Every structure is written in C-alpha cells, then in structure tokens.
C-alpha cells in the first residue's frame, strides 16, 4: 500500500549544481531507483511509470512498451485521466504544474518505500544557465549506463537524439534563450496574429491547441525537439513523459513561470474566472495514495500553499536591469501593447521546408485599419506569423532570420526566433482538436524592426525572411508552412 510523504516544503534544485557537487547526488540516485520501481508497475496502475506518461498522451499503436498482457484502464478512466495535457492554451502552465506536483509526490512516496528520505524533490534542468558551460548538455547521471552499484540506470535511455559521451546532443543557445519569454508582459494575449503572451491564449479545455504561448515555443518546444531528435521519446506527445528528463525539463518550465512573475510587478497571472476556476472543465489526477483529485488553476497559482509546498532553489532574474543585453532572439518587446486587434499587412503563399534553408519575401501593404489611426500610422508591435505548420513525420526545429534590406548576401540576418516542431505531427492529425490545422507560431519582431529602422535597413514594402534547419532535417517529412504573414499592431 502506498504511503505518503508528509507535505513539507520541498526544494527543487538545479540538477547541474547537484551533479557538479559530486557524482550521483543522493536525490538523483533515489530518482533512478524510484523510476526503476515505477516501471515495474502495470499499465493500469495510476502510480506506475507508463500510466503517468499516458496522462500526457497515450496512443496504443505507438506505445513502445505495449504487450498483450497489458490491462488498460476502463474507457471512462482513459477519458478522464489520459491524454489530458494542455498545449497551445493558457492552461499549459497550471496543468503541467498539477501534473508535476502529483508525479513528484508519487516518486517521493516510492523513494520512502525504498528506504529513502521523505523530502525528495524533483530537480530542474536549467539549460539556459549562462554561468554553466555544460548547461545545455544532459547531466552525466542521465547518460551513465549503470548506477554506482553496477545495476542498470533507469535515467539513461537510448530513445533520445544522439548523445555524445559528455552529454552534448546538439542543443543550441538559440533554443534555450529565455529573454524573449521573460520579457513578455502579458500572460495571455488572444488577439489573432499576435504572440499569445507568456502563458498562451485563452482557450477551453484543449489537449493540443493551435497557438502556443512564447514560453511554450522557446525553450519548451525546442528542448523537446532537441532531446527527442527524430525518433526519441521526447519528440512525441505520446511518449515524451517516458523519458526521465521530461520531468526535469518541465520543472524548469514551471520554475520560469515563477521567475517571470517575480521579475516584474506587471507580470500577473490571469484574473479571469475562466482561467482561475473554469466551469465545466476538470483537471483530474491521482495523488500518491491513488485517490482521484481534481484541481483548478487557482489551486496551484502559489507553490507555497499547503497543497503544493515546494519552492525552487533559484528563481532570480537572469537578466537584471543593470546587465541587460540585447536579446539573442527577437523576443518580446517592452513596448506596450495597444488594446486593439492586430492587422495583417502581407503574407506569402505556402512554403515547404526540408533540409535546405528557405528564403521568403513578403510584400507589405500599408495598414488601413486601427494601426493607420494611430499617431504616425506606425505600428507599436510587429509580429511574424507562421501559420498552419503541418508535417507527416517528426522533424527537427528551424531558426528564423529577418534579413535587413540590402544585406541578404552578407550574413544570415537577425534572429527572430525558432520554430520547434514538437507536436507538429499531432497537430496535423485530423484527431487533433483543430482537425489537423497544424501549429501556428507568432514571433514578436518589434525590436528587430526598430533596430533595422534605426540603421535605415527597414523596407516598409517588403520583408525578407530566412528559415533554416537548426540541425540536419529530413527532406521527406512533408513539412509545410501554410503561409508566413506579418501583422502590425
């Protein structure tokens, strides 16, 4: 029978600091042992490894561990508890916080059952830590084949992108740049053509929404795609949580929510009751005792309350004002958003992406709507939209450059952001909530445009964009962008 570790204030620590302090920090060793124990539990056990992963999404046909002896939960239980992850939605952050909360309690309880301490906490992976030259690599505890006692290490799995012995798997600084998301002033922005805000646009219950928020794009989607590669667990919704690193990745995403809130008094969670206590929406989980629990985002807004009782080792602002440097990517502008819809001013036809870079030229019209009524007719913000991105197979991410006018041949251009392809196959499926519309991203390029204007490199009639694969990309994934468009606001 499961016990439950007392609800004490757990401290989630930086996994790289744990690793650099000495090989196999006790909490990492216990994590490995707990994962091993959880993997032995059957598929229909809510406290089991596979059940926990299925909460994110489950596809029987692509279950890498399926076997004829599996007992699936009832259809009703599958409907209530499996395939519940919220993406492309303002519920992305609170839902994943709930998910991690109960996972952590289940692991902590398993640790206690195995003879470990009661205060085990889930570490986080701060891949954006510029003070750590190894931050973007997998910690050694996640690639070592064995534990110190010679038994197999459950934290090391082959289903990842190719990993070098030092943990390098090709993750780039662009993919973990967090200035863009941390500069977003609003949690939610549901205006068509804009960036959806830090946390995502307002939706109902949506398992795979079309318009992710800035944090969900970078670094969340980028890290999924980079770790998973073309065939690894982290690259698909239905298998992502089978990789033990998934939980540390999402602990960091959860931590960045706190970092965002703390760094600016204007950074506030939604006060809309549709977010706090949505009517008709149940986020259901099992606690460490196997009992059903139902939460609303208001329950998990504050990690210090009794229900959550955890904090992060470090939620300091990585970009204190005195040391502010230019964003590595275009990022969120600190220009205030106008309270009006964005206007589309130009778009391409469909663009196919593959192994080679693609350059697109977008003819821009003069705005004739709300933007034209503003003083000077100049937009306060400029967004680059990549609409209806679809693919038949898992593929890698892309980086987007904006080419200053007259500068195309000298260098690649200014980095606008990345287009991670995590979830693109799922979003292309007709089973997705939007019937196969694919993913749509909006990158805030206001600062890039302002910089180009100041150097007389901005052409108001045309914008050139270059899209390049971050790493080797397959040419047969069927990856296509419905159109690339520019919105002014």
């Amino acid at each position, binding site marked *: 029978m499961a016990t439950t570790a007392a609800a004490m204030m757990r401290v989630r620590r930086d996994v790289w600091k744990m690793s650099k302090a000495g090989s196999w920090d006790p909490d990492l060793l216990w994590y490995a042992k707990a994962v091993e124990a959880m993997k032995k539990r059957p598929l229909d056990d809510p406290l089991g490894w596979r059940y926990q992963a299925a909460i994110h999404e489950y596809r029987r046909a692509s279950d890498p561990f399926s076997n004829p002896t599996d007992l699936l939960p009832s259809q009703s239980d599958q409907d209530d508890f499996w395939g519940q992850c919220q993406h492309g939605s303002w519920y992305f952050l609170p839902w994943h916080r709930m998910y991690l909360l109960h996972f952590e309690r289940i692991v902590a309880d398993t640790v206690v059952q195995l003879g470990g301490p009661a205060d085990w906490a889930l570490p986080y992976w701060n891949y954006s830590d510029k003070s750590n030259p190894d931050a973007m690599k997998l910690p050694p505890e996640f690639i070592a084949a064995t534990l110190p006692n010679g038994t197999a290490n459950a934290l090391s799995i082959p289903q990842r992108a190719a990993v070098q012995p030092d943990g390098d798997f090709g993750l780039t600084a662009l993919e973990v740049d967090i200035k863009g998301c941390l500069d977003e002033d609003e949690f939610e922005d549901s*205006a*068509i*053509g804009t960036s959806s805000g830090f946390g995502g646009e307002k939706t*109902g*219950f*949506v398992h795979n929404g*079309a318009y992710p928020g800035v944090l969900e794009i970078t670094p969340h989607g980028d890290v999924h795609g980079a770790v998973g590669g073309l065939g690894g667990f982290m690259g698909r919704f239905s298998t992502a949580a089978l990789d033990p690193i998934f939980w540390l990745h999402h602990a960091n995403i959860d931590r960045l929510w706190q970092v965002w809130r703390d760094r600016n008094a204007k950074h506030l969670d939604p006060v809309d009751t549709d977010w706090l206590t949505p009517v*008709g929406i149940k986020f259901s989980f099992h606690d460490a005792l196997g009992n059903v629990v139902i939460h609303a985002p208001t329950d998990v807004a504050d990690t210090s309350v009794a229900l959550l009782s955890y904090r992060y080792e470090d939620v300091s602002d990585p970009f204190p004002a005195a040391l502010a440097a230019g964003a590595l990517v275009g990022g969120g502008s600190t220009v205030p958003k106008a*309270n*009006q*819809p*964005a*206007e*589309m*001013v*130009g*778009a391409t*036809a*469909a663009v196919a992406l593959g192994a080679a870079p693609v350059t697109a030229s977008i003819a821009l*019209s003069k*705005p*004739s*709507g*709300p933007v034209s009524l503003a003083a000077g007719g100049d937009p306060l913000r400029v967004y680059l939209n990549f*609409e*209806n991105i679809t693919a038949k197979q898992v593929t890698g991410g892309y980086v987007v450059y904006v080419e200053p006018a007259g500068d195309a041949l000298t260098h690649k251009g200014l980095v606008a952001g990345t287009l991670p392809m995590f979830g693109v196959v799922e979003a292309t499926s*007709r*089973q*997705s*909530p*939007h*019937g*196969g*519309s694919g993913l*749509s991203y909006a990158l805030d390029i206001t600062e890039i445009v302002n910089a180009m204007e100041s150097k007389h490199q901005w052409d108001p009639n045309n914008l050139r964009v270059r899209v390049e694969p971050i790493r080797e990309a397959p040419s047969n994934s069927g990856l296509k962008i*419905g*159109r690339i*468009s520019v919105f002014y606001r």
Partner: protein
Amino acid sequence: MHAAFARVAWNHPQWWLVVPSGLAWAAILAEASGLPIEVCRSGDAVSRFGLFDPQVLLVGSWLPEMRAWSWMLLATMLPLAAWPVRHAALRSLWNRRHRAGLGVVLGYLTAWMITGAGLSVLVLGFGLKSSAANTSFAAAVALLLAALWQWSPIKREALRACHRTAAMAVHGWRADLDCLRYGWSQGCSCVVSCWALMFAMMLASHQLVVMLTIVLICVIERARHRPLHRQTSMVLVVLAATVVAL
C-alpha cells in the same frame, strides 16, 4: 458609444451575422406565436407516406420546403459560422476583411443549401410530412437517429474539423476563392457533424422547444470541441418521446 462599437466591430468582424440570424429568429418566433407569417410551415405534402414520389423533383413542389429550410439555416446554423468568419476576416488585409467573411459565409451556406435540397427531396418524396401524425412520427425517428449519430466517430471527427483554420491568399481572386473554399470546407464539416440534428429540426420545425434544444446542443458542442454524446443523446431521446406524445 461610437468608439466602443468600433472596438467591438474591430475585434469581432463577424458581428454582422447577428442581423440575418436575428431577423430569421424574429420571423420564426412571430410564426410560432401565431402571427400570419409563413416561415417554417412548408407547403402541402404531395406524396403518400413511405413511398417515394418522383413528382417532388419538380422544383415548384419543394420551394416552400427550401424556404423553410433557409429560415432555419439563417437562425440556427449561421451563428455557428461566426468563428471561421472571424478567423478569415482577421487574417485578411483590413480592407478585405468583410469581403473575406462574406466569402466564407457564401461557401458555408452553399454546403448547407445543397444538403437542405437533398433532405427536402427525401422529406417530400417519402411523404414524411403528409399528415401531422406522420410528421411527428418522422420527427421522433429523426431525433432518435440524431441521438445515435452523436456517438458516431465520424461526427466527432467532423466536429473537430469545424475548428480547422486555413491559410488564405492575400489579394485578388485567389483570396476570394480561398475564402469560398474555406467556407465550403467549414460548411461540409458542419453538415457532417449536424445533419441529423438539422434533419430532425426540419421535420419538427413547428416545435420551438425542439429547435431551441438542438441549437443549444450545437453551440455547446462547438465550444467544447467534442460532443457530449452521453448527455445529448439522452436529451434527444427524451425529445423524441415528447414529440410523439404531443
């Protein structure tokens, strides 16, 4: 006031759908309240119940049925086009936004009108409205059929497709064509999702409670991205029993 309305119109370019839909509801409610106006009452039946009469293929005999269908469509299905209209409008150049929305509506309504023509031929051809008793019976059967359809995986997929977005051309005839195609695609998905409900509504068009219940089901399902098949099929079965009892 003007500025406030402008902001609503900017953010909701689909607002104008309220006008034809509202007029249709006003006409339907006026007829239901006994005013001398013919909206949902269709013409006299020409066929015997159960046997297909090819005479219905004469245009004149099913025009009244199509008139009734059109009013019902404007009242009940047109509001469901609000989301794709908004999508197309706000993703078009500002000075084309209403044209884009209109293109979507035309494509959407075309799909439904073709469906209505087909269903009208069935209703009239088989004499499903040849008497009040036959109409009630047929309406009840249609409601039971709709209850079954709620469980269909085809319905579920169609409901998801109703939330599909599309990338459209920016200028000229290509943009117009893309909007028409998008509207047509949305209309077809809507038809597959809701045809059984609309068929039941067609047969029970004089009963306001049936209309309002069906509209509520459509609106709630559209908002949830998935059917409430258990609850809605129970409601439809109860409605079927009510129609027969009355």
